[in-house]
Structure formats: C-alpha cells, structure tokens
C-alpha cells in the first residue's frame, strides 16, 4: 500500500472513531459515580437539649405531677420513721418506694435515707452540719459533700449550661444537680451514642462505620 493510501485509510478510520466516540459520549455509557447507600435522617432525639431527668423545681414549674413529693399523703406527721436494715447493714427500701434504687456512693456508703432526708420533717433535706433545706434548694445539700464540683457548678463550669455567655445580652441558664443526676443513684446515665461518620465513597478501603453493637 502506498504511503498516501495508508494516510487515507488512517483518516477514514479516524473519522469513524470520532463519530463512534461522539455517540458514546451522548449515550453517557460510563463514568457514573457509584452511589453510597443513603444515609438515614438523624433521629431528632439526638439533638434534643432536654436534660436526662427533671428536677423537683422543673417539675413544679412545668406543672407536672408532684404527688411524689407529697410525703404526708401517706406518712403521719411527727411520727419518727425507722429504717429497716438487712444483714449487711444496707437499707431495705420499703415496697411503697420500690421505684427508688439506692446507689449513692461506692460500697453502699451513702445509702442511708436520712443522710439527706430529714426524718422529723420529710419535706425537708438536712446537711451534716445541721442545715435544713427545701427540696428545691438541693444543690447546697449536694455541695456539702461534693465541694469542688459545687464550686465549679457555681462558676458555671460544671454541668450543662445554655443561654448567653455575654451576660449583658442575656442570662446563662444553669441546671441544678438533680436535672442530670438522680439523687438516689447519681452516676451519670450511659446512653446510646448517635451514629458515627459515614465515608464519602462507598467502596473505599477505609474502616467502614461499625454496626450498632460492634466494637
């Protein structure tokens, strides 16, 4: 084949290739990004700013059922209460109060009800140094043993806050101890974590997000 003829062949082949390629482009045959499985919308409970529980004060403010705090509905006034202790010396919670789980302090150190409650006046709390406090004044009671934490709380450094850091524009909203800590079992409750990060590419060789319950 002469050089010229080869040249013509090449040009014809090129024309065909260009046309074929053009059709392929128009038909969009390749290069689609693999779609990762859709990420489910977050359960809005995870971004709720509500505290773990409601303190007595909050309960009163919200107009909820305060019958639990009406001690003399069942107890008799001026009748001293006796605690029942089991063989190990632990308080036995009476079955009327069986919803209360006693877990304040390690090794059952603080499980005596009248460490905090006033046995002569069930509507009051008492500190070891003899102060009597209303239920809604409970932070001072907690602070009578948990000094450093109480000082931090007063400065706004312990516990959940919200509102304004710039006091000229608004107030800081501080929660009381019992908004987060159950006074009878104050250990901060563990909870289910919100979902972890999802990778950008589905088939990436990265660590894929672990399934719930996995390590």
């Amino acid at each position, binding site marked *: 084949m002469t050089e010229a003829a080869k*040249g013509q062949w090449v040009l014809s082949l090129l024309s065909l290739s260009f046309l074929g390629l053009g059709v392929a482009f128009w038909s969009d045959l390749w290069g689609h990004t693999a779609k990762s499985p859709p990420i489910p919308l977050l359960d809005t409970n995870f971004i709720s700013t509500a505290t773990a529980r409601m303190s007595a004060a909050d309960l009163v403010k919200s107009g909820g059922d305060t019958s639990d705090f009406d001690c003399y509905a069942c107890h008799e006034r001026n009748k001293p209460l006796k605690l029942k202790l089991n063989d190990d010396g632990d308080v036995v919670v009476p079955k009327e109060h069986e919803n209360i789980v006693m877990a304040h302090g390690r090794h059952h150190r603080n499980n005596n009800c009248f460490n905090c409650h006033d046995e002569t006046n069930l509507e009051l709390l008492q500190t070891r140094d003899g102060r009597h406090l209303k239920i809604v004044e409970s932070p001072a009671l907690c602070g009578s043993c948990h000094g450093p934490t109480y000082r931090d709380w007063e400065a706004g450094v312990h516990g959940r806050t919200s*509102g304004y850091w710039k006091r000229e*524009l608004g107030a800081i909203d501080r929660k009381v101890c019992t908004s987060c800590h159950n006074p009878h079992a104050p250990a901060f409750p*563990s909870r289910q974590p919100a979902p972890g990060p*999802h990778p950008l590419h589905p088939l990436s060789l990265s660590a894929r997000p672990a399934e*719930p319950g996995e390590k």
Partner: protein
Amino acid sequence: MADANLPASGPASGETSRRSFLRTSAVLASGIAALAASLAPLRELTDYTAVEKFFQKHYKELTPDEMKQVLERIAREVEKQYQVRPHVRDYKPLDGVEFVYCLNLTRCIGCRKCVHACVAENNQSRDPEIQYIRVLKMPHGSLDVEKADHNYAPASVPEKGFFYMPVQCQQCKNPPCVKVCPVRATWQESDGITVIDYDWCIGCRYCEAACPYFARRFNWTKPSIPKERLNPEMSYLGNRPRRQGVMEKCHFCIQRTRAGRYPACLEVCPAGARKFGNVLDPESEVAYILRTKRVFIQLKEEVGTSPRFFYYFDV
C-alpha cells in the same frame, strides 16, 4: 523520496484531490462533532453562577450596601431552593472579645450529640455527610491519635477503659490554613474565629492539607439539606448553605456567638463537658477554668499552631 514530513498526498489528478479533501473535511467534521458530544454532560448543569455572583468581591472589600445586596441575594437563593425565607445577617466581631473553648475530658461520654447538633445548626450537607466535629475514642493513658477509634458504635457509652475526645477546628492563633490559602479566602478575625468566605474560595484544598487537626471539610458535590431541617437563622460567614466546590469548617457558631449566645455543640452536651466564652473577661467560665485547672492539653502543641481549644481533666 517519500519524506516523513511531506503532506500525505501529492494529488496527481483532480479526482484524488477531491476525495482526499472530502476525507480531510470528514475527519475535521467528525472531530468537531466528537468534541461537541464530549461536552454532553454539561446538559445537566443547573447551578449556573449569576453574573453578579461571578464578580462578587472578597468579603473584606464589600461595602455595607454591597453586603446588603449580597445578603438579599443569598436569602432569595435559599428561598428558591428550600421554600423557606431565611434571616441572613452579617455579624461583625464584638470588641474586647477573644473566644476560647475548653473541653472537659473527664465529663465527655462520647455520645456524639454535639456532632449532630452542629450539623443541624449549621446547615451541613446530610448526604454526602459533612460533620465538623469528630469524636475520638481513646484508650486510657494515651493521647496518641493513632490509637483513636473514629467509628465506635457500642450499645451505650461511655465504655470502660476509654475516654472520648471531640475534635473540631481549634481556631489556632497561628493558623496554617490561613497561611497557605492562595486567595486569602480564609482568615482570622479579631475575636479569634478563623472564617471562610464561601463565595471567594476556589476549592484548591491546600488548607485541608495544611490543617493538623482534620478540621476542614470540602463540598465534593452539591450539598443536600432536607428542607424541614434547614436552620433559617443564617450568617454570611457562618451557616448559610454552601455550594459545591468550596471549603467549610467549624466557625464557633458565629451566628450565635457573635450575638452573645453559646454554640450549639455546647448547649446540647448532656454532660456539660463543653465550656465556651470570652477569655479576656475574667468572670467568664473559660477564664475560671484556665485559672483553676492544672493540666491542659493543646492538641499537637509541638506543631506551633497555638490552638484556642483547651482539653482538661477535672482534678
């Protein structure tokens, strides 16, 4: 002699010259057709840049009037896309304020509520997912991030033998990201927040390479926010919806903090592990913490970034 540099054909007669001319034109025509067809994907382009937006000046050069027009334009675009009329403002830094963030590692339980509160507050893309905060699950006794687990998903947290360290933009005093941006699209303001002008960023991702804290995020494609989850309280430098191809990162909830409020991550933290405020105010919580707590960790202190994020333990 057939010279390699010769034109392919020396037409001997009119016949072959016409054929070769046709063949040459056929190649040119088919080549141009193929070129046009190769641009076929542009059919799907819907997100045209308006002319006014193309020429928009850098944030620092916008006059107040121009800023007003820009905010108007943003509000219109958001309304068009999400059918929600937003409130877009430009918050200036407050005087005498330097923000600092303190995070109590004794208290953090690793629940990741901060991560998602941030996403909700700052209109981040849900799919593909952008999250400014990354919570690291660390084994007791080590701050070596290589030992961190980013993808923990147990039934409940905290887990015994571990502590949790959320990491977000540290708003460094000596920010490497600001140093490397070729167009000054990111800079630090007087209150310490390192901000990004989303309409100026060219998307080169040099800042993402420079950041020692994995704090910066890029919009790899068009971000998607469900309409019902859109936060309509927006700011220009903060949480207004971003577009494909630009960087974003934690900005200390600029639309909240410059209005005197706490950032979203702080407000949602159930354990109160996060503390934020003006370190120049001796009455603030953060000034108290920096005065009274004994051990502080500034992540990767040796890299010289001088972060404004302080991790501490309670006793």
